[in-house]
């Protein structure tokens, strides 16, 4: 049962558009799947390899702008941005890794945060390349209907899920976790920690960049404040993983479903709309204090808590 469960879940999700769902529900599903992809990417670097990034918006934004600039400056379809972003983001991540990966723990986190902000400000100040704060608009949309976008992001999500599973079960995965648990011990056991941290960063960045390139195509509009956003991207992806479960396979999926639904729910209640960051913040605080390893990661603890209640 456990082995076929993922296949069943994917199959169930894949038939959803055939049920004639409303455009809005399809949109929420697409967002959820996109955030799962970014969450899985962050989790590979942060959860498994222990390198907490506060700047994943940088990779998302570079992916998004690769797509946008190809369309805007070179006049080719923004879809080419997805394959192109792989190379662009990989090179960019190598450079960023060279600078930031010599930092440890919270310093790495803040180094990446700085990278995110630098990119936003740079994009705002280079209108010749990025159109600055005006942003880039994709005028010819591929489809009006959302079904195809849904299947594209779902395919990407499935591939990323399989990739993460494969990586974590392999030599790479063992090395990542060893680095997370004790970098000095890992180093003295023959693990080239700098090299493997760079691999984790590049993998994570490329996946995030792909999601960014998809975003450009799907939303049809990007600007620096949106795609390089600190709170709405870099922090939200941390929340997706923290809520769902750090260093688990399904954590980012569960976390993304909760976060997207919560965001939509709050937005739909006009009274609460303005307070959505308060809700997110309080949720984050509660999760960190009571379920520090997320819902999936703390299932034993959750069961214990619920079990106690039953006994009462």
């Amino acid at each position, binding site marked *: 049962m456990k082995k076929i469960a993922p296949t069943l879940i994917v199959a169930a999700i894949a038939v959803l558009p055939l049920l004639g769902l409303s455009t809005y529900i399809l949109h929420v599903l697409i967002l959820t799947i996109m955030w799962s992809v970014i969450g899985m990417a962050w989790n590979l670097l942060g959860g498994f390899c222990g390198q*907490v990034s506060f700047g994943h918006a940088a990779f998302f934004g570079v992916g998004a702008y690769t797509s946008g600039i190809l369309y805007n400056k070179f006049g080719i379809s923004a879809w080419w941005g997805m394959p192109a972003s792989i190379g662009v983001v990989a090179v960019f991540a190598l450079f960023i890794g060279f600078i930031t990966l010599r930092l440890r723990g919270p310093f790495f986190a*803040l180094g990446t945060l*700085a990278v995110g902000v*630098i990119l936003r*400000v740079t994009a705002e100040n280079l209108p010749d390349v990025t159109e600055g704060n005006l942003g880039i608009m994709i005028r010819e949309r591929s489809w009006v209907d959302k079904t195809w976008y849904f299947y594209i992001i779902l395919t990407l999500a499935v591939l990323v899920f399989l990739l993460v599973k494969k990586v974590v079960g392999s030599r790479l995965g063992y090395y990542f976790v060893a680095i997370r648990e004790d970098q000095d011990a890992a180093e003295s056991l023959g693990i080239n920690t700098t090299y493997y941290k760079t691999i984790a960063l590049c993998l994570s960045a490329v996946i995030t960049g792909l999601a960014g390139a998809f975003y450009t195509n799907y939303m049809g509009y990007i600007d620096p404040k949106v795609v390089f956003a600190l709170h709405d991207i870099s*922090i939200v992806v941390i929340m997706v993983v923290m809520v769902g479960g750090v260093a688990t396979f399904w954590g980012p999926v569960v976390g993304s479903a909760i976060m997207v639904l919560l965001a939509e729910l709050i937005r739909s209640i006009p009274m609460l709309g*303005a307070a959505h960051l308060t809700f997110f913040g309080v949720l*984050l605080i509660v999760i960190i204090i009571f379920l520090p*390893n997320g819902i999936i990661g703390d299932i034993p603890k959750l069961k214990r808590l619920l079990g106690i209640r039953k006994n009462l």
Partner: protein
Amino acid sequence: MTSVQLEVLLQTIISGIFLGGLYALLAIGMTLIMGVMKIINLAHGELMMVGMYIAYALFSFFKIDPYIAVFIAAPVLFGLGVLLQKFLINPVMKVDSILPENQVILTVGIGMVLANLATIFFSSDYRSTPVTYATKAWYISDFWKDSPLELSISLPWSVSFFFAILITAVLWFFLTKTDLGKSIRATAQDNDAALLMGVNVMRMRMLTFGLGSSLVGAAGCLFLPIYYLFPDIGGQFTLIAFVITILGGLGSTVGAILGGLVLGVFESLTATYVGMGWAPVGRFIIFIAVLIFIPGGIVSLFKK
């Protein structure tokens, strides 16, 4: 260099030093917290924002001058800091989790809530405090008629700068001359040794977080006559404070002062000669360069 160019350069450096003095006050709070508790407080700028709104409200409703509001905002922020430390940060420091960065993420959460609450209570409008002296300035030619150069010093900037120096001096006295201050410094140097010597480390932590918060709250009041105020203003100041702490040397008060001045002058130069929008980029280039080339910060250069 023509005299006009020289004037611009000197004027830029003067504003940079004034800005740096306020930055230093902001960063001392963060470096104290970092030194004693070994945590990075990413809600630091948001605490400053709270201080600013307190001063703003006092001015709007009771016509209390922002410089007087320092004496109200600082104690309020002290209390807020103690509560945050006691009920949120402390419990998390005890929880075992996969990622030790949990406490940093926690402070991000606190910052989000504070900024959002400010939006709810005060809306996201930009506000300024119309103090009567906002645009007053002193000119060199007022004092020295034949001065070859004309430089001006803004009144609110210089008063804020003076206040910042005063507060820093009082803090220095507190930390070096009083028993309580010495206990805080002992805790920062060696937690375990302090514990063995009978210092109540838990209490020192609460006190430090309160003190750090009240310092940044005071800095907020001093910024108010000069800056626009809006709920999301905190984030950029958190980053500034953090960059200065790294630049100066972690946990070093002297480093925070030096780092503040260096960053203030540097930003002022960037704004004048490269463009206003680029100041944040310059800030982070300094940040990354320091991490790579002088990981111990400015203070470590003197030790050699």
